[in-house]
């Protein structure tokens, strides 16, 4: 049963991004500045692929997109879930930007009258029909950020990149209980906001 197996390297700092993520985890804010352009390029490129073409019923799994970006950048040696959480933290804002931009182009074509139900559940599967909601959410989040930046981040991570409770906690160095509490309130408030916007 002898097989060709690649010998594992001594350390997994073989890719620049893993080093940067490690620094980020250590609290180095500088690392974030370096990461962002790297990540943005990758995400943007990927997002373009998926959103290309005139498809009616277009579904986009955002978290998968970010995952893909992560894997391409970090390679197989970067599969440390903590690193990943931080990566996602960086990506969340970028992802939100990309989605909203996309939603705006989409939405412009779709606005019409009639009842609109709020159906945004998960950016795991975001479809064009929900683009107006994404825009509304974005605006609402901007509002929320004025008095609670952290809560806004939590929503970004949970919704736009699909991180789990633990992963979000890791990314923000908080406890999962805190995350849960914050998220509950944020959701309740955002829900109200969206309803309000919709009825305007």
């Amino acid at each position, binding site marked *: *049963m*002898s*097989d*060709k*197996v*690649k*010998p*594992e390297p001594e350390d997994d700092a073989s890719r620049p991004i893993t080093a940067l993520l490690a620094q980020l985890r250590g609290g180095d804010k500088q690392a974030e500045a370096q990461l962002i352009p790297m990540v943005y390029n990758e995400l943007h490129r990927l997002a373009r*692929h*998926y959103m*290309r*073409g005139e*498809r*009616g*019923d*277009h*579904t*986009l*799994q955002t*978290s*998968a*997109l970010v995952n*893909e970006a992560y*894997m391409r950048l970090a390679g*197989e040696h970067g*599969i*440390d*879930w903590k690193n*990943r959480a931080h990566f996602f933290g960086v990506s969340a804002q970028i992802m939100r930007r990309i989605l909203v931009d996309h939603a705006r182009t989409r939405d412009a074509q779709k606005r019409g009258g009639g009842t609109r139900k*709020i*159906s*945004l*559940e*998960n950016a*795991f*599967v975001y*479809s064009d029909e*929900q683009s107006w909601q994404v825009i509304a959410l974005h605006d609402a989040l901007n509002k929320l950020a*004025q*008095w*609670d930046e952290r809560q806004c981040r939590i*929503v970004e991570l*949970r*919704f736009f990149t699909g*991180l*789990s*409770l*633990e*992963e979000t906690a890791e990314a923000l160095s908080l406890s999962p209980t805190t995350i849960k509490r*914050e*998220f*509950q*309130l944020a*959701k*309740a*408030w*955002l*829900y*109200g906001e969206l*309803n309000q916007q919709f009825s305007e």
Partner: protein
Amino acid sequence: MMTPERWARIKEIFAVVAETPRESRTSILAELCRSEQDLQAEIEKLLAQHDEMGGFLEGSPAPAAEKASLLQAGTIIAERYQIVALLGRGGMGEVYEAEDRELGERVALKVLHHESALQQDVMDRLRREVQLARRVTHPNVCRVFDLGYHRQAGQPITFLSMELIKGETLTERLKREGKIAFPEALHIARQLCQALGAAHEAGILHRDFKCGNVMLLETGAQVRAVVTDFGIARWIQPPRDETKSFATNTGLVVGTPAYMSPEQLMGEKLTAASDIYSLGLVLYEMVTGVRPFRGESSWTETLKRLSADAAAPITMVPDLDPRWNRTIMRCLQRSPAARFASAREVLDSLQHRTRYSLSDVRPWLLATACVALALGLGGVVLRDRLWPPSLPAQKHIAVIPFTLKGGSAADQATAYGLAESLTQNLGRLQVTESSLWVVPWKEVRNQKPDNIARAASALGANLLITGQMEKSEGKLQLRAAVKDAHTLRNLRAEVIEIPETGMLRLEDTLLERVSAMLQLPVPAGMLRHLPVDETVEPGAYEFYEQGKGYLLHYSAEDVDRAIVLLQKATEKDSKFALAYANLAFAYAWKYRVTRDPRLLEQARSLAGRALALNDRLAPAHLALALAQKVTGDLDSAVRELELALQLDPTDAETLNLLALTYDESGRLLQAEALLKDALKRYPGSWVNYNSLGYFYYRHGQFTQAEPLFRTAIELAPDNPISYDNLGGVYLALGKYKEADSLLTRAIAIKPDANGYSNLGTARFYLGRYSDAAAMFQKAAELRPADHRLWRNLGDAYTLAGDRARAAQAYETARQELEKEVASRPENGQALTVLALYHAKLGQQEKALQKLAQAGRIAERDGAFFFNAAMVYELAGQREQAIGSLGQAIRKGYPLAEIRDAHELDQLRKDSRYASLAGGPEAAK
């Protein structure tokens, strides 16, 4: 106006109130807000929203909106298919049941999304994939018929027509019933392996194999599993732009990440091993009910598979067969090279490879080369013609390969072939003559008795038929004799003269004369069963006989010669069915050796030709069965073999092959019944005892195998095969004493390294270490490059107390293994064993070093950890040894082997061992 401070207060109060039960909320809220009305109102509003929001921003993805189906019932597509009903919606489009009006059958139509259909490169790939998929005809693979186009309301529609499978998916079944219980799990697993095997043979990878692609249909007693969407799934998804050059469409977003192999996730090239990985996941889910790493987010699950080992299924299902556990874990190896190389191997591993296979696997029919017997008979003295001595009432006959005096190698081949034909033909008489048993050709060929004196006891015959051919001046002369197998006295003898033009009737003539000698009546009409009843061009026949003679040797050059000759035969006579059938045998054999799929195609088409010319020709059915069997289409092979057996019930090859195929396709009861029946009909046949015994042996039913092998030995006391088998049984049953005496006799007949080593093993387990050492010594001398023999020797010396000699033996073992490691440095397993040898030599540092090295490259399976445990123990690191042993056990390594390992004698007394092995009764 909202401020951060105000918001912070809201947050605090909200957190508290949201936790309290609804009845008390208002009062608590009022208290906490301390009469700030607007604050209270705001929080009340938030609470109301909280209660109303449901799964907002969280929870499972929104279900796809119910759209109207694209096609309505009654619509006619492509002027051929009439839609009956919508069956379901998949990721790629909708599936309809439709009536094929041209053929009057129901089919499934898979209609693709418009969008996908428009991309040109996707369509090209899809077309190619469909071409490949159409080639696979297998009962467990959903047939793909065609790619079609249609226009509806100006929109182009692309669709696939496929076999209609109405059942439930494996996913649905698992959801309903949790995991699948054992006999059924094996039944399903077998079908899945066969399906994958068949597709891989045809050159297609599935690439999206998962529970959702396995359909289960209740057909009668057992469920039929059908795999759908081979190779197609990948192309019928929202397409991606390939601005980067990836070898395959990686599609992380598309497809089902939960079942993807690591290399797929990393965007690397896919191979059959990737499908094997997915198969592993499906098997895992089948037996445990869940996938490995089922965690919170689906991506965590997927990513964890990339970096960590899954929990062995046996930890979740403690009564899981450890073979299954090992098999599944091996399929799930992250490195493709470490997995099984084919679905076939997976199935073998699941089914019946016991560890006690001391004897070689029987090479049914397509065996390797054998050397023709060259018996110098000298002149036959026909002294006995005046008083023909009586022939025994029970006739157990062996036809010894004929020899040739003068004549070319080609003629030699003919002579050889003639002896085989005679064997076959005499064998057919068994149907009507219950006192007759003919030793099958294969056994005669395998035996190669150096002198025919041993033929009797080696073959279980009491009569021998010998023949010396002489070819001179266009005349063929055959001196045939019937000899008493024990005394070698001629009981009958004749000279048969055949002019060349009578070659055609040679087989008939031979049969008539020999059966007359044997006083066996040839039933009227029997001769018409012989293949040569139509007019065959005489020249063709000669080529055929020669070709067949060569073919019987089953060596590479001889088979090639056979092909040339048989081809000539068919050129001379294009209706010569038997020649085509034999050509098919030849190609099937070559395919088995080289794995070149074109050879398989040829074998198949030649078999087809033979059948088209004469479908009552048993060898033609046999040839087709071989081709089918080799591609894993066991069900068709069984049908063909049953037909062949019907047409020629006495052919031992067919019978054994059918039994084997029943066995492999899981029809164990039928295999057993067939072999038992053969036994009943020919009770003098040691071969049949051996076959049935081997069947039980392979399935671990040693107590049933034992008496059968014993009888085989009684009937053919000098045949080493039965000894090997019985010896294996004894060792497996722990009957070391009996194994000892038996294997001693086996050595006497066939003194080879394996025999000595086995005998050594028996003595070792009997505690007779010096005797064991003596045997291992002999074995190692016969095969000095085999390090395992030296290791065994070392172990025997160690336990016999002779440390010096033990060290010498281990040192030799180490040297031999070093050579192997030097030539294949990536062999992790060898490195592990090398570490063990160092440990046995007391070279602790080196041992640990090698072990660490091995740990980096070896497959970390049960065997690895077991060896590691021994290394640690011998190096004095008990802690680590226990740890490794625990790992080994968790990975399903057999406890019996752990118990038998003398290197771990001290460790087993350690209290920590008891809890590892599951209770004090497990400790020795």
